[in-house]
C-alpha cells in the first residue's frame, strides 16, 4: 500500500517536474537580449527572461531599489524608449498618468524578452558597488546605531546622498537605502545611522553586524546639491533618523564655509530618542552663525528629564524662523512631517524650488523625493 502510494505520487510529481523542466528549457529561454542605454551610449548584452533590474545589476548598473522587487517602493523607475511590453497591473499604483505616457516603468517588473532601449541619468551610470568592512559601531540611542565602514575604494559623494546596502537574506541579497551621515571629507569611510525597525531585514542585519564584518554598498544616489551662494542661509529640518543626512550636510557646510548661516531643527518623540545633541552643541560653540533646536513631540512617553522645547517640529519652525526668501531648505523625515514643514517654510517666504525633501520611512515604503 505504502509502496504504491509512493510510486503513484512519485509518478505525478515526476510528470509535472518534467513538464516544468521542459518548459523552462524551451519556453522560458529568451537567449541573449541587448539593452540599449541612452540611444547608443552603451549596449549591454544580458540573458533574457530576467527582470530589467536584475539584468542591469548583472551588468553592474545599479538602479536604486528598496523593496526587494515587490513593486512597493517605486525607486527603480526607469524610462523605456523601446520594448518592454505593456504596463503591468503591479506597476500602475506607483505610476502617474504622466509617467505612463512618458514611458516610465518599474525596472523590477519589466521582464526582458527581446531587445529593449532605456534612458538613464548619467549620475546613475556612475554608481558602482563598493566592498566595505565595519570599522566601528556604537549605540546613539536605545534603538539607533551609528556604524562606520571602511571602503575598499574612495567614494565620491555629495552631502545628502545615500547608499544602498546589500543585505544577504535566504532569498538572495535585498537592497536597503541608508543616508550617509559622516563627513564627505574622508572618501574611504562612510558613516550610517540606522534605527532598528521591528521585522526590518536591513536594520536588523546592520544592528547585529559585528565589527570587522563585510558588507557591500551601491552608491551614491540622490539629487540634493548645496547652494553655491555663500550668502544663502541653509535651513535643515530632521525628524527622527532623518538626522543622518542632515548631520552630513551641516558638517560639510560648516567645514567648507565656517561663517555660513545655518539653522537646524530636530524633531524626536521623547527624550530617549534624542541623539547627537552634544555634537551639534560643539558645532554651535565654534560657529556663531549656526544654531539648533530640538523639540519633543511626545515628551511624556519617555523619562521626565527634558527641559527643552516640546511640540511638533513644524510648530518650532513656525515659531523660531523669521520670514524671508533667498534661503535653501533640506527636510528629512516621515511624510506627514515633510508636508507640514514644507507648508510652514512656504509661508515663511521660501520658494518650492529651494525646498528639498527626503522621505525617510521604514524600508518597504522608502522613496526619495525629487
Amino acid at each position, binding site marked *: 500500500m505504502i509502496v504504491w502510494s509512493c510510486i*503513484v505520487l512519485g509518478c*505525478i510529481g515526476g510528470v509535472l517536474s518534467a513538464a516544468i523542466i521542459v*518548459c523552462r528549457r524551451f*519556453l522560458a529561454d529568451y537567449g541573449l537580449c541587448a539593452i540599449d542605454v541612452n540611444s547608443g551610449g552603451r549596449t549591454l548584452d544580458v540573458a533574457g527572461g530576467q527582470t530589467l533590474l536584475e539584468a542591469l545589476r548583472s551588468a553592474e548598473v545599479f538602479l536604486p531599489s528598496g523593496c526587494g522587487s515587490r513593486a512597493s517602493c517605486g525607486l527603480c523607475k526607469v524610462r523605456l524608449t523601446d520594448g518592454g*511590453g505593456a*504596463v*503591468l*497591473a503591479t506597476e500602475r499604483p506607483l505610476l502617474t498618468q504622466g509617467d505612463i505616457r512618458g514611458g516610465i516603468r518599474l525596472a523590477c517588473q519589466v521582464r526582458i*524578452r527581446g531587445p529593449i532601449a532605456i534612458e538613464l541619468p548619467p549620475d546613475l551610470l556612475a554608481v558602482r558597488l563598493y566592498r566595505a568592512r565595519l570599522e566601528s559601531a556604537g549605540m546613539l540611542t536605545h534603538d539607533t546605531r551609528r556604524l562606520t565602514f571602511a571602503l575598499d575604494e574612495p567614494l565620491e559623494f555629495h552631502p545628502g546622498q545615500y547608499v544602498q546596502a546589500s543585505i544577504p537574506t535566504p532569498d538572495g541579497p535585498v537592497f536597503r537605502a541608508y543616508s550617509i551621515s559622516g563627513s564627505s571629507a574622508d572618501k574611504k569611510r562612510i558613516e550610517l545611522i540606522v534605527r532598528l525597525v521591528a521585522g526590518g531585514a536591513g536594520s536588523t542585519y546592520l544592528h547585529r553586524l559585528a565589527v570587522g564584518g563585510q558588507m557591500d554598498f551601491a552608491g551614491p544616489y540622490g539629487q540634493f546639491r548645496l547652494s553655491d551662494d555663500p550668502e544663502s542661509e541653509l535651513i535643515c529640518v530632521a525628524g527622527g533618523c532623518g538626522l543622518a543626512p542632515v548631520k552630513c550636510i551641516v558638517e560639510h557646510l560648516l567645514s567648507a564655509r565656517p561663517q555660513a548661516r545655518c539653522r537646524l531643527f530636530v524633531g524626536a518623540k521623547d527624550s530617549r530618542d534624542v541623539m547627537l545633541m552634544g555634537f551639534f552643541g560643539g558645532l554651535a560653540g565654534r560657529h556663531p552663525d549656526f544654531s539648533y533646536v530640538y523639540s519633543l513631540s511626545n515628551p511624556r512617553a519617555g523619562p521626565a528629564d527634558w527641559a527643552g522645547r516640546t511640540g511638533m517640529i513644524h510648530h518650532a519652525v513656525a515659531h523660531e524662523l523669521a520670514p524671508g526668501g533667498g534661503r535653501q531648505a533640506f527636510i528629512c523625515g516621515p511624510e506627514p512631517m515633510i508636508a507640514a514643514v514644507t507648508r510652514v517654510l512656504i509661508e515663511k517666504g521660501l520658494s518650492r524650488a529651494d525646498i528639498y525633501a527626503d522621505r525617510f520611512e521604514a524600508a518597504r515604503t522608502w522613496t526619495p523625493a525629487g
Partner: protein
Amino acid sequence: MTESGFTEAAAIILAAIFTGNILLHYFLGMCSFLACSREISTAAGLGLAVTFVTVATAPINWLIYNCLLAPFNLTHLWLLAFITVIAGFVQVLEMVVERVSPTLYSALGIFLPLITVNCAILGASLFAIIRGYNVWQCLLYSLGAGLGWMLAIVLMAGLRRRMQYADMPAAFAGVASAMVIAAIMALAFMGLGGVIEMKLALSK
C-alpha cells in the same frame, strides 16, 4: 444533446454560479476575495485567471482520481495529488502564457502565482469527485464554479468601490464592512435556490 441533458447541464452550471457559489456558499477562496476586491479591473483579471485554472485542472484531477487513484485503491492520496497537480500546472501555464501571448500575460500572468494556493480551485476539483460527476459534468461544474467565483469578486469590487464614499464609522470600514457585504450577498444568492430546484422538478 437531449432536452433533459441540456437542462441538467444548465442546472449544474447555474447551481455552481448562484445557489452553490463556491465563494459565498462554501466560503472557499476567501483570502484573495477580500484582498483583491478593491478594483473592478483587478477583480475581473483575478476572476478570469481562477476560472481558467479551475476549468483546466478539475478534469485533470478527475482523470487522475478515476484512472490512477481509484483503480489502485489509493483514493486517500487525493488531497496530495490534487494540490501537486494544481501547483505544477500553474507553473507550466504561466510560462506558456508568457511565451505565447504577452497581452494575456500582462492581464492574467501576475495573478497566476497568487492562485496556486487558492482553495476555491482545489474545492472545485474535490466537489466534482464527491458528487460523483462524470468527466463532462465535472467540466461544466468547474466552469460554473470559476464563473461564480469571478461573479462574486467582481460584484464585491463594485460594492466596495461605492462603499468608499459611504460615511461609515472608522472601526467598521475596510474588512469589517466587506465581511458584512459578503454575508448579505450570500443571502441574496441563496434566495435563487428555489428557481433551480423548481426547474429540475419540472424537467422530470
